[in-house]
Structures are given as C-alpha cells and as structure tokens.
C-alpha cells in the first residue's frame, strides 16, 4: 500500500510537469492556432540560464526569477520576430518552424554549455514526510503544489483581469478583437511570454531529477503532447487531468507491468491514445470542431 501511494504521488508530480508544458502548448494553440514543438526547448534554455546564474553564485530563487523573466521576454520575441510571419499561413509550415526553433535552441545550449549532464540544485529537499503512515517525498509534493498554484494564478489572470479578458478575446477571434481596438500583436506576444514562463517553471522543477541536458525535456514534450491529444486542444482542464492520468498510470505500469518497466513507460500514454482514439477521436474532454469551407 505504501509503495502504491508513493507511486501515485510521484506520478502526480511528474504529471504536473507534463501538465504545465501541455498547458503552455494549449495556451499558444488557442492564441495562434499552432503547436509549438519548441515549448520544451524554450524551457530548457531558461533552466540553463538559471543554472548558469547559480554557478556564478546567485541564490537559486533569484536565479529562477531572473530565468522566468527571461522566458517571458524570449517567448514574446520569438512570437514577434519568428512566428508572426507564419501564423496565418499553413499550420504545417509553422510547425516546421517550431521544430527548427527546437533544433536551434538545442544547438545553442549544446554549443554554449556542452551536451554533458549538469547538476541543477533542487528547491525542495529530498527527504520524505510521513502522512497517515505512508511516506512521500517532499520534492513530489512541492512540485505538484507549485504547479497547482501557478495554474490557479493563470486561471485568475484569465478570468479575473482585464488583460486576461483581452487575451481571451484575441484567442477567440483576432479580427473582431482588432476591430474593437485591442493591440492583437502585443497580446499575442504576452500569450507566448506567459506560455514560455509556464514551461520555465516546469523545467526548473524537474531539472534536479532529470539532470540538465539540452534534450532534457524531449520526453516531457512527448508526454505533454500526449496529454494535449487525450485532453483535447480546446480544454485546459481536460489537458491537466490527462497529464496527471498519464503521470500516474505510467508510474504504476512501470512497477506493476513487468514487460513495460521503467525504460518503456514512455509507451504508456501512446497505448492510452490508441485506445482513446478508437473510442473518442475528439479527445476525452474536447469538442468536435466543424470547419467551414
């Protein structure tokens, strides 16, 4: 029983990281209609910045804040100078652009900081706490808690502020938003910046466990995309639930299904996808979209 609870909590923590990246992808998709395959790569870049600052003697929490500010600026610049040209065009070309961006970021990180694994300090201690006779690691609890708080803050931003209202208007209908005087271009930059910051938080939380390499979040990106498919691109709540589901299921499968084990657990979300696709092609929570010719 103790193992089971520990596995579920660890799964929720991993799932929270996938959820954050998946949410960033959904955020970008709802604003600009494209899937950003570089979302993980952008997060890795900002974790590298934080890591570089800590090696220069900057306290971890300050380094993290600086890296998050950097992410917001970087996301906004990427939107303005790289993606905008492709946003209203063919989505497949735009996807290839994000793949080019991923290659570029990986290349820059590998060139500046080598492809060797780097140790990243953890925000939370590795000790376990006992709770109702079951011991769970503080890091898992902390990761999950931070990401839930960040998601709640984002939800508050979108539903409770004027900026959030404007962002939702642009996502909903960019042309009408422009007619009513909203600075659509600048709002898209804000959307990309927020998404990049969300990815950066997730990256910083998972980096101590994975150790920092330029390809650190490639697997996490795959999980996040799986969560996006399962949850449906139109449903942030569905995506988060799907990410947690994936995190928990893959952890349980790694231990309780001998053939899968730790090395093949990345296959779990895709087995899940195959099953779901046969039953509900629009995703667990998504809506069917109808396209007008």
């Amino acid at each position, binding site marked *: 029983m103790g193992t089971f609870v520990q596995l579920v909590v660890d799964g929720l923590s991993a799932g929270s990281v996938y959820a954050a990246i998946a949410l960033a992808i959904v955020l970008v998709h709802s604003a600009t209609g*494209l*899937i950003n*395959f570089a979302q993980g790569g952008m997060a890795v870049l900002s974790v590298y910045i934080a890591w570089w600052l800590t090696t220069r003697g900057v306290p971890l929490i300050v380094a993290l804040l600086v890296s998050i500010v950097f992410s917001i600026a970087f996301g906004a610049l990427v939107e303005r100078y*790289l993606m905008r*040209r*492709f946003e209203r065009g*063919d*989505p*497949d*070309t735009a*996807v*290839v*652009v994000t*793949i*080019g*961006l*991923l*290659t*570029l*970021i*990986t*290349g*820059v990180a*590998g*060139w500046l900081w*080598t*492809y060797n694994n780097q140790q990243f300090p953890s925000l939370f201690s590795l000790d376990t706490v006992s709770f109702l006779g079951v011991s769970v690691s503080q890091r898992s609890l902390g990761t999950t808690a931070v990401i839930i708080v960040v998601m709640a803050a984002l939800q508050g931003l979108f539903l409770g502020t004027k900026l959030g209202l404007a962002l939702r208007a642009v996502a909903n209908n960019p042309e009408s938003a422009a007619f009513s005087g909203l600075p659509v271009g600048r709002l898209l930059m804000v959307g990309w910046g927020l998404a990049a910051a969300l990815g950066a938080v997730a990256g910083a939380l998972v980096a101590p466990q994975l150790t920092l390499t*330029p*390809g650190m979040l*490639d*697997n996490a*990106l*795959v999980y996040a*995309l*799986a969560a*996006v*498919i399962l949850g449906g691109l139109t449903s942030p709540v569905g995506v988060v639930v799907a990410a947690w589901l994936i995190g928990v299921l893959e952890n349980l499968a790694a231990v309780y299904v001998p053939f899968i*084990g730790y*090395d*093949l657990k*990345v*296959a779990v*979300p*895709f087995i899940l*996808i*195959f099953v779901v*696709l*046969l039953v509900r*092609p629009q995703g667990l929570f998504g809506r069917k*979209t109808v*396209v*007008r*010719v």
Partner: protein
Amino acid sequence: MARAVDVPAPSLRQRPWVRLAAPLLLVVLLAVLPLVLPESTNETLARIGVFAVAVLGLNVVMGYTGQVSLGQIFFLGLGAYITGYGVQQDWNIVLVFLLACLGAAAAGLLVALAAARLGGLAIAMVTIALPIVGVPLAKRLSDYTGGSQGLSARFADAPEATGLYDDQWQLYVVLVIGGIVFLLTRSLVRGKFGRAFAIVKGNEAVAASMGISPYRYKVLAFTIASLIGGVSGFLYMFVIQYTSPETMSFGHSIELLAAMVIGGAGSIVGSLLGGAWYVLVPELTNQVDSSLTALLQGVVLLAVLFVLPGGLASLVRRLGRGRRRLRAEPGPGASPTTPLSTAGSATATEETGTEKRGHA
C-alpha cells in the same frame, strides 16, 4: 507553364531528342561513375543514396500530402533491424528485403490508422513518439536487436563473378534499388494518387466534397512513406552494415525532417539534395566543431523557411529559369537576380499554384 510560351524557340529541355537522350546519358553516367571514383567517394555516394530514399519517403507524406511526420527515422530503423536479423538467421536476401519493406509498411499502417483519425497536426504529435518509444524498445528486445550493442550484418560483399570491389558493388545496388524507388514514387506523385494527395494537402474539406477521403489518403501516404522507409532501412544495413538503437534517435528524426525541408518539400530532386545534405553537412561541421551541427541545422532550416520555402530544389529550378529568361529577352526587366526576400516567396507560391493547375 505560362512562361515557357513566352520563349520564342523551344527550350533545350523540350526538344524531343534531348528528352530521350538526357535520361540515357544519366544512366550511362551512373553506370560508369562507380568504376572511376575513389573508394571513399563511392561510400559517401552510397550513404547519400540511402538517406535520399529515406527523405523521399518523408516527402511522400509531408511534402506531397502535407502531414508533418516526425517518425520517418523509426521506419528506417525498423527496416534495418529486420534486415540485420534476417541476415543473421541466413534467410534468403530477397525474402529479407520484402520483409523489411512489408514490416515497416505494416507498422506505418497501424500508426496511421490511429493517428489520422485526429485532424490537423495530430500526426505530428503522435509520430514524435515513434523515435522516443523506438529507442528503448530496441534496447529492450535485445534477443532480436542486440540491445544497446546493436546488430551488425555483412552481406554486401561483391559477388566474385562481377569482379567489382565492395564499395562499387554497394553503390550499384543502392543506385538500382534507389533508382527504382525514385522512379516509382515519381509516377505515383504525378499520377492520380499524387493529385489526390495534393488536394488533401490543399484543403481537406474540398477533398472530401470531391469524394476523396482525406482519412484514407493520409493513411495511404503514411503507409507508402513507411514502406519507402523500410527500403531505406534495408539499404542502410547494406551500406553501413551496422545498426543500433541510436540509429532511430529523436535527434536523427529531426535532422531527417530538416534535410527534407532544406532539400525541397514536395520535390523529387529535393529528396536527392536532402539526402546529400543529411550526409554531408555533419561531415563538414565535424571537421570544425561537432557541437555546432545542431546549431547550424537550426539556423539553415529557419533561414530556408523564411527566404526559400521551396528549399534548395527551388533554387536550382529558379536559376535555370532565370538563365533561360535572360537568354530569351535580355532586357532590364528580366534580371535573374531578383531579391530573394520578397519576390522570392511570391514566385514560390505562384509556382506551386501553376504546378497544381498543371496536374489537375
């Protein structure tokens, strides 16, 4: 082609004797070259052939049908593993070849049947998992794949009767098999199926209204791409004689996609250029600094997308056209050195437009 009409004399390519002689000359050239080139050049050419076939497969699903696939390298790896295993078990080599093709095609069909159910970018989002699941899977099935050690198979020794060196024999086999695949694919994309692929790429709703099921043609394109990937896997094993899980890593998958876009999406010549890019660029950058490869790939990929959406193939085509136009009317208006930035993309879209009309 509207522009060809403006040219007073028929251009060189349109004269009947050139149309007959040019392919013949090419075949003779390809038959002679392996005999006279040095060994290392032959080996490089053979590797370019292998990856040109892989890029061609990717082009069928991505360049012609417009479905982004990040999993093409998986089918190359699968074909290579099937070939390696079959050779180790001493199966008939023709049977091994067929198994490599069909095994990859069957896997591709299975993936496509599920992935193509989701519209839009889902194929990209699902196929990204293939290399990421493929590597640990290959390590796990170590009874068949040799685990992380990899699998080697030597079956590319030149038969005694031919009197060829191994490198010449390898290049000939790659030229023949690769050539056949290229010719078959060329007919495929220029024929009925190619037109259907183009409509699915252009607008799925229109395709459906014309009785062309986007789902079925996406699955078909993906399956053909996997089949061609299987062929390239067989050739990979034939030329390189060794495969490991690293063969189908995520990084290689992205490099293959970059090579396709840089070579030229939706272009047969572009697939050849893409294969050359895939093989030659890492060799060149490794001489300077191997950690620069990814950086350079990213920069060039983005640069191509910005200024040259048709890839290197469109550059070749445009240079040819520019020279012809210059010869026809040497006026100030027909400067062949049009700035690439603005006029370039305009011509590219116009070009694809006329091509599509030409096909329909």
